[in-house]
């Protein structure tokens, strides 16, 4: 079974679903489950679309890297779909298109095709955020998204004008043996970096995040913060490792942006008192961290960092948004003592937060240790210092949040979490714990992932 079905089937379902408005969300759940299920039978390699091979036609690449990416994004998507299917009926078909867009993003090997799928997924995302009932925030998100993707297109066209091809692998090889200095390609790559920076929530470009995530609901929160973040992370990783050539001035700019994002993200999270704000600012910092790890070349561990963050943010946003819906606002004050009488949710929330901070016995710890170890071995001394200092700050505001949620005596907020949510959240927490302790599979899968960071399929 070829991977193209992952895009074609959801599209087909979307086109059909507008006719049967009532069953749209059942189709959604069925298709997303089918795509997760079908991933098992996909055979690796490159899929040419329309019969024309690589540099001329459009080509989809399914190697280890995108397989893991697809597994993660599809499972998370399925979880979000299952948990929200009866509440947000109207956006069923839009979610289907979003699924197609995301799968397209992860699979495509062609830069312009990447722009098209970025737009498809983007527009689907703008529409999903309109369920927040905050039109101004969605408008702001739309404008910034469009500006971002236009800049990406401008950068892409400049590259096309210079090297005459649109295929990623072909572009990378023609840049490599074109012999031009780094200065030539710096401008288009910066434009593409900014284009993706907007979507990946890097600091100077993400002023839309607060509007969207600070008043998100059970659908938009997990959708934007974990599913989209993971997909964009993976695609950005693929671009950074395979296509981008990052040297002197461009490197300086990128490093400044990343340092600023990580440090400011943690400082903002420390300064905020609303639970969702803490989570969104910490996810800004985590996103920047992911980009840093990709740039230093440890693709395998960057993948695990994305997985850890995406799973964590899914659990955190699900719990927070469910509680906010029933309590009205999401101040830490109103949340105090939330876990006293729903311990299972509390345990899952704590396990996931501790994994994000990077305490032992959790997946986060294994990833962070290995990233630091590789950085030190590759002679980089500054980034580990920044990572450690920011994770101390991060630890403090997360622990402050946790202790507020666990320890309180009187007038506890009563919030009812339905069974499905509990079930999902506990499974994720247990998985994080299991892989935190039993680290063999994580260790060697991360190491050999690094080997395949180049597109093995896209006939270089």
């Amino acid at each position, binding site marked *: 079974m*070829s991977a*193209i079905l992952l895009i*074609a089937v959801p*599209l*087909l379902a*979307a*086109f*059909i679903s*507008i*006719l049967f408005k009532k069953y749209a969300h059942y189709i959604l759940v069925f298709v997303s489950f089918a795509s997760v299920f079908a991933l098992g039978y996909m055979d690796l390699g490159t*899929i*040419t*679309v*329309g*019969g*024309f*091979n690589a*540099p*001329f*036609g*459009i080509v989809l690449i399914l190697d280890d890297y995108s397989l893991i990416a697809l597994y993660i994004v599809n499972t998370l998507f399925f979880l979000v779909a299952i948990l929200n299917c009866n509440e947000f009926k*109207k*956006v069923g*078909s*839009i979610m289907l*298109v979003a699924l*197609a*867009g995301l799968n*397209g993003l992860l699979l495509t090997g062609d830069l*312009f*095709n990447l722009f*098209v*799928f970025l*737009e*498809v997924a983007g*527009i*689907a995302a*703008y*529409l999903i955020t*309109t369920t927040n009932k905050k039109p101004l925030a969605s408008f702001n998100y739309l404008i910034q998204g469009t500006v971002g993707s236009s800049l990406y297109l401008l950068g892409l066209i*400049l590259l*096309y*004008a*210079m*090297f*005459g*091809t*649109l295929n990623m692998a072909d572009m990378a090889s023609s840049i490599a043996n*074109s012999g*031009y200095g780094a*200065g*030539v*390609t710096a*401008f288009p790559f910066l434009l593409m970096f900014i284009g993706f920076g907007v979507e990946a929530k890097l600091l100077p470009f993400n002023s839309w995040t607060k509007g969207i995530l600070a008043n998100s609901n059970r659908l938009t929160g997990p959708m934007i913060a974990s599913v989209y973040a993971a997909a964009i992370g993976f695609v950005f990783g693929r671009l950074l490792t395979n296509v981008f050539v990052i040297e002197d001035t461009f490197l300086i700019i990128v490093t400044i942006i990343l340092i600023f994002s990580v440090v400011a993200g943690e400082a903002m999270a420390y300064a905020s008192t609303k639970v969702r704000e803490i989570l969104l600012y910490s996810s800004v910092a985590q996103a920047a961290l992911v980009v840093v790890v990709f740039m230093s070349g440890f693709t395998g561990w960057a993948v695990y960092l994305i997985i850890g963050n995406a799973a964590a943010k899914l659990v955190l946003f699900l719990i927070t948004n469910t509680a906010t819906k029933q309590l009205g606002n999401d101040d830490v004050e109103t949340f105090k003592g939330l876990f006293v009488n729903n311990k299972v949710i509390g345990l899952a929330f704590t396990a996931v937060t501790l994994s994000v901070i990077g305490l032992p016995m959790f997946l986060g710890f294994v990833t962070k240790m290995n990233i630091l170890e590789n950085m030190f071995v590759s002679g980089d001394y500054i980034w580990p210092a920044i990572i450690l200092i920011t994770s101390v700050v991060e630890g403090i505001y997360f622990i402050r949040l946790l202790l507020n949620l666990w320890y309180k005596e009187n007038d506890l907020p009563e919030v009812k979490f339905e069974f499905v949510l509990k079930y999902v959240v506990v499974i994720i927490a247990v998985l994080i714990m299991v892989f935190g302790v039993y680290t063999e599979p994580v260790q060697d899968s991360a190491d050999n992932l690094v080997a395949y960071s180049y597109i093995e399929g896209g006939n270089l």
Partner: protein
Amino acid sequence: MKNFLAFITVLVLGYMIVVSLDNNEAFPAYGEADVSSRVSQAFIDRSVTEDPGDIIFGQATNLESGPANIVTAIVADYRSFDTLGEVTVLFVSSLGVALLLGGKKQKRLELNFHPNFMLRVGSRALFGIILMTGVYIAIHGHLTPGGGFPGGAMIASSMLLLYLADDEFRAKIKGFKMLESFAGTAYVLIGLTGLLLGGYFLENLLDNGVIGDLFSAGIIPIVYVLIGLKVGSEISGIIDNFLTEEGV
């Protein structure tokens, strides 16, 4: 003051971009783009799979991709996956507009302009002509410039004419929805049949026939007509949503 400052920065930025593009040796100056070094040379002389020699209009038969209009060849055949993505974008935005503005029972927006009888009747005649040209452009996509998207836009403009000319007029939205969904599904199904029979998604199964004829270039014209219908119905749907409001 802020505007003036913004103007200065934008000006300086523009100047910098122009200068950097000028002295960037890889970026060809305006007009000197050497197409041969680019991927598109293969599209021009249809030599992606095998080299058919020089193409004579009216005689060359079953080239690797049929349409005389090379841009349509790229849009509908070489990179038709983009167009599929393209169509989804439009589909989603029309769906979104319907979601944002559409309610259960819609009635026409109360505008203070009430057209007189002459305008209402005259526009009916004009509607037919615009519709026909739109369909013509859609059908001849693979020969003459234009194609699915411009054709679809013209079809929608004819609908717009009716909406503007007559303030009680409301098209049957149900029909547009059906057409849109049918066209979309047909397009994807053609792609899937290509996958099943020809081994590649969206492969051109039918033979390309002689270049330049009306019935040449395999599935391209069919796909383009479908796209034209889909775009037309979607944009009309959007027009309807904008020109109506909640009400009994």
